């Protein structure tokens, strides 16, 4: 049942992901991107990471997409007519198909499969302690330094945005 459900969501995710690239109208692309984000949120739920799913919907499908759609409407982008870069598309398709064949071949050989290591957390712990609390804990203990570096990264991004985009600095 779970595999079947996964297959459906994965199919929707891939199709909507392709639509993001293929749509000629940027608004349609943005809307397809929202569908992709929702599919990812579904994956998080299936992986028993409800906090991640909520954040995915709130931050990405909510806040960031509103921003993207807002910018597209402000810039008043025209629908791209006519196709450019036809050579690149042909070459890209050939390389993509070759890579796909390679991937299928690589993973179908009788190797040890895709088993990864299992960490200390399992379904039982997540249900007992709570997903949000577990994330919070590791963020302030194991990943304290990365968490702090993120603040520097945001600072650089803000300064950079002002330097590049403000009219008069």
């Amino acid at each position, binding site marked *: 049942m779970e595999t079947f459900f996964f297959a459906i969501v994965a199919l929707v995710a891939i199709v909507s992901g392709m639509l993001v690239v293929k749509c000629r109208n940027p608004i349609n692309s943005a809307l397809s991107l929202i569908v992709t984000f929702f599919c990812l949120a579904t994956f998080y739920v299936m992986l028993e990471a409800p906090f991640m799913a909520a954040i995915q919907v709130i931050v990405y499908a909510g806040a960031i997409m509103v921003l993207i759609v807002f910018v597209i409407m402000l810039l008043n982008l025209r629908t791209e007519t006519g196709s450019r870069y036809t050579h690149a598309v042909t070459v890209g398709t050939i390389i993509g198909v070759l890579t796909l064949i390679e991937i299928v071949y690589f993973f179908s050989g009788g190797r040890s*499969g*895709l*088993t*990864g290591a299992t960490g200390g957390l399992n379904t039982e712990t997540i249900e007992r302690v709570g997903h949000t609390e577990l994330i919070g*804990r590791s963020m302030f*203990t194991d990943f304290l330094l*990365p968490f702090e570096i993120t603040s520097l*990264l945001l600072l650089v991004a803000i300064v950079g945005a002002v330097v590049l985009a403000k009219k008069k600095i």
Partner: protein
Amino acid sequence: METLAMPAINFAAIMPETILSAVAMALLLVNVFVRSEQKAYLGYLSLIGILVTFFPIVAGWNAPVELQSGFNGAVLQDNFSLFFKGIFLVSAALSILISDQYMQREGCNHGELYPLILLATAGMMLMASGTDLMVIFLGLELLSVALYVLAGFNRDKLKSNEAGLKYFLLGAFSTGFLLYGMALTFGATGTTKIAGIAAYVAANPMITGNQMFLVGMLLMGVGFSFKIAAAPFHMWTPDVYEGAPTPMTAFMSVGPKAAGFAAFLRVFMIALPAYKPEWSALLWVLAVLTMTVGNITALFQQDIKRMLAYSSIAHAGYVLVGFVAGNAVGTAGIMFYMLSYAFMNIGAFAIILLVGRKGEPNNNVADYAGFGFKHPLLGLAMSIFLFSLAGIPPAAGFIGKFYIFSGAIQAGYIWLAIIGVLNSAASVYYYLRVMVFMYMKDPVEEFDWLKVTPAHALCLLVAVAGVLIPGIVPGYLLELAQKAVFF
């Protein structure tokens, strides 16, 4: 509810990064009160910050192991990372010294330049000392985001905008590869700590057949290769180097490359030594391709900035030779080479910057006709840098190449060393071509617009000293580099 068990923090392990970030944030505040024609003072303040940062680096040298590690093993400030941090500081300081004059000339002397350089340097340091894939990734992002802005810093020039946008798009693309590789590696081993990955691989030899782990390793390799501009992932380099403001080209041709190599070395040498035959075979091909593509393309360049961009690709290839060798001699050679590369490359860019003037970059090789007669001292300095880049003794570039190639020979990669030496010989052509124009053609221009500010003169003096002194008496610096090798 139980309390949080805080990890052992040990601020000493991230002291250099802390100082640089603090200075950068303070400068952002000071910047508001400084008038636009006096932004050079911010440069002097940031230089003081860099000088102060040298203290924890010198003090941390040969520190006991328990003092090196911090944040639950997220960073390790060993001699290896300290040596690289020294390289980053040198390249940042030299680039800051030549920045103000250029930025004023081009009318983009915004004070945000210096904080961005300092934060980029902090990012490089985190890459060099990070022993957690998360820290390496975030350090790389901190560095890259700052560099995207610095590449497009000359907002009114189309070329600079193009450089910033190209660097941003391709950089974000390559970061995707790196992050995907890290995620797959995490999935296969259950940890992001490099030491943890190494322990897992040692405990589970069966993992060699795990596709997830193999693909993760490959993708990480691709991500790092993008950052060090190894062929065939080098396409962004010439356009970005050409379009970016010249002092920033100097900065980004040295520091980020060294940081990329530091993280690349640490991840592959410590986490994945079990795969050394596999990845060194891949890197062998990458090294040969990078050297050859870089050098052959550089032969046909008329624009000197593009020529140096392709030459920097070739230099990444030489450094990859030391990486393939994977022994102590080769790794010490890499560190020595990156340090001397900082001096010679930034020095060369400092001269290129002087020859140009507002709206007239004079980047063509032919623009250098007779430059050596009009300005004998500057011509001499440029010749020293070019000799060093070509690897001709007694410059430091020769010693570095010598140790890298002898490391490759010791490890049994005779053919790789031969290809490297042949490439090095071919590169002499395009370096000497500039000198032919400088000394053997009649001057077309008077070069009377050329003005060497004290800061600029200091940068050139330090660069010449940094090329000549280790080139003539390499013993001390080599010893330091050998002590910094982490295995």
